[in-house]
């Protein structure tokens, strides 16, 4: 277990409005989310001395460049906009998912470089479509995929889910309950994107993108930003909200085979690696977890994470969800706020924020009563994936 286990905490959560193609530029949404996180903690911009994000824009095969403040928000542009550039001690910017930046923020606080850090992720829906391979040539890793049309991320997840279905005899029908219950969770979440319930039949009838991945197996791209405020637990106890303690975290280093973005077998190995490191860093065991916030940018990752975390054996994750054990009143409530399927694409900030919400009793109608420990996992278990344990302050 780490020396700084439970000594760093999340003391504030801030969300901008989450919507599709708003009139406001992304920078404005990022400022809104950061100010909301500060207000939640009872702090001001003057108190912030660290700022970190991943200012990446997941547009595949496009020709347009990237404009700071419109397509992405870098910590340098944001700090100037917030007026924090005169007193920041540290900025971080990762090529991995933003959750890797969250880990760097915790280490910056543990080391004394900073005492108050905002971790934010601002995402913009590009003009046209996220995926439209217009380039004449496919270079580097793309040359082995894009000529075949294998350049759409849902299709990568499609090959993962297809192998899983074929190995264990599942079909999309086995996932329908989870998807419908997840939408019900979303409707209990004030940050949820959707305002209508979804039936199991709606899921089965959904438009297919890359069979077996339908549009409802993918998080919806939104314009918006989520921000989390990190500080020491000691300091957090004097702030406005109850702190969520960071008990441990881990990162993945298992790569997919060159030439492919992901495979089922590599995802299993990767998730298990991330989980093993997580239990080691936190001293927590799988059976001590009260709620799981697992990455659902593509929904099949949900059951694969349950398996990787050791909550169920390989091949049984989807049966666990099919039988309702991951629903709000089930054995292990999963993605209690609707996850990224429900909030929209925030690249893992949803899983972190919901973990914080659950261990601080802020879940309202979706609260898991008395939740002491939440696990959050981000990405697909391969390189750049991360996992976290958050604990109640008691």
């Amino acid at each position, binding site marked *: 277990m780490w020396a700084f286990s439970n000594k760093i905490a999340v003391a504030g959560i801030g969300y901008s409005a989450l919507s599709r193609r708003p009139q406001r530029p992304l920078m404005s949404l990022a400022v809104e989310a950061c100010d909301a996180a500060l207000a939640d903690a009872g702090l001001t911009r003057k108190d912030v001395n660290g700022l970190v994000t991943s200012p990446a824009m997941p547009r595949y095969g496009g020709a347009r460049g990237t404009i700071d403040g419109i397509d992405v928000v870098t910590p340098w542009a944001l700090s100037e906009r917030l007026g924090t550039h005169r007193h920041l001690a540290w900025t971080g910017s990762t090529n991995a998912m933003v959750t890797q930046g969250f880990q760097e923020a915790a280490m910056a606080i543990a080391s004394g470089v900073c005492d108050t850090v905002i971790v934010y992720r601002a995402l913009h829906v590009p003009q046209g479509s996220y995926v439209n391979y217009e380039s004449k040539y496919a270079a580097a890793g793309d040359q*082995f995929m894009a000529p075949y*049309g294998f350049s759409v991320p849902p299709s990568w997840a499609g090959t993962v889910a297809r192998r899983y279905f074929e190995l264990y005899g599942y079909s999309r029908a086995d996932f329908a309950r989870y998807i419908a219950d997840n939408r019900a969770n979303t409707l209990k979440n004030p940050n949820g994107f959707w305002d209508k319930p979804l039936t199991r039949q709606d899921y089965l009838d959904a438009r297919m993108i890359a069979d077996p991945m339908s549009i409802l197996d993918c998080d919806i791209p939104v314009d918006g930003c989520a921000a989390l405020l990190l500080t020491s637990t000691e300091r957090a106890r004097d702030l406005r909200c109850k702190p969520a303690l960071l008990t441990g975290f881990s990162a993945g280093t298992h790569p997919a085979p*060159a030439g*492919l973005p992901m495979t089922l077998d590599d995802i299993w190995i990767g998730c298990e690696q991330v989980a093993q490191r997580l239990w080691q860093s936190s001293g927590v065991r799988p059976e001590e977890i009260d709620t799981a916030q697992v990455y659902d940018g593509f929904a099949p990752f949900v059951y694969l994470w349950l398996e990787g975390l050791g909550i169920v054996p390989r091949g049984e994750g989807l049966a666990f969800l099919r039988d309702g054990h991951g629903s709000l009143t089930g054995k292990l409530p999963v993605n209690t706020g609707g996850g990224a399927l429900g909030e929209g694409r925030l690249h893992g900030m949803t899983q972190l924020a919901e973990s914080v919400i659950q261990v601080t009793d802020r879940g309202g109608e979706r609260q898991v009563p008395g939740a002491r420990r939440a696990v959050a996992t981000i990405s697909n278990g391969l390189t750049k994936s991360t996992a976290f344990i958050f604990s109640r302050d008691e």
Partner: protein
Amino acid sequence: MESTQAPAATALRPLPLADEVSAPFWAAARQGRLDIQRCTACRHWIHAPALACPACGSEELAFEPVSGRGTLYSWTVLHHSPGPGFADMLPLIVGIVELAEQPHLLLCANLLQVEPSALRLGMPVRVCFEWLDSDHAVPQFVPAGDA
């Protein structure tokens, strides 16, 4: 190995841009041959082509022909066009083929001359080549029957 003519498309699919590492792979494809990179030290097969062997770290790598036979590791059926060059080809099957030469030696390609409903995990497939334009041929796969 046979050659399959591409269906006439109004827009071109993205063409593979050969680089310092991959050039022998694409040069072989133009000759209707599937060559895969191999470590001369430990004999490990490598795809996609790499700068060093992921098994032993050797930088002494060369390309060798393979049988062109494999089995279906997984697949997806595209119903949403990934770009302007694919709009007329839907639904399009993308298969992940495990080549016969080595476990988990995986390569993606379209599966041609087969209906999605006929696909099975582990079904035998064999390579063929498709010309995307007069300069670019890519390996594709078709069912190999009981062979």
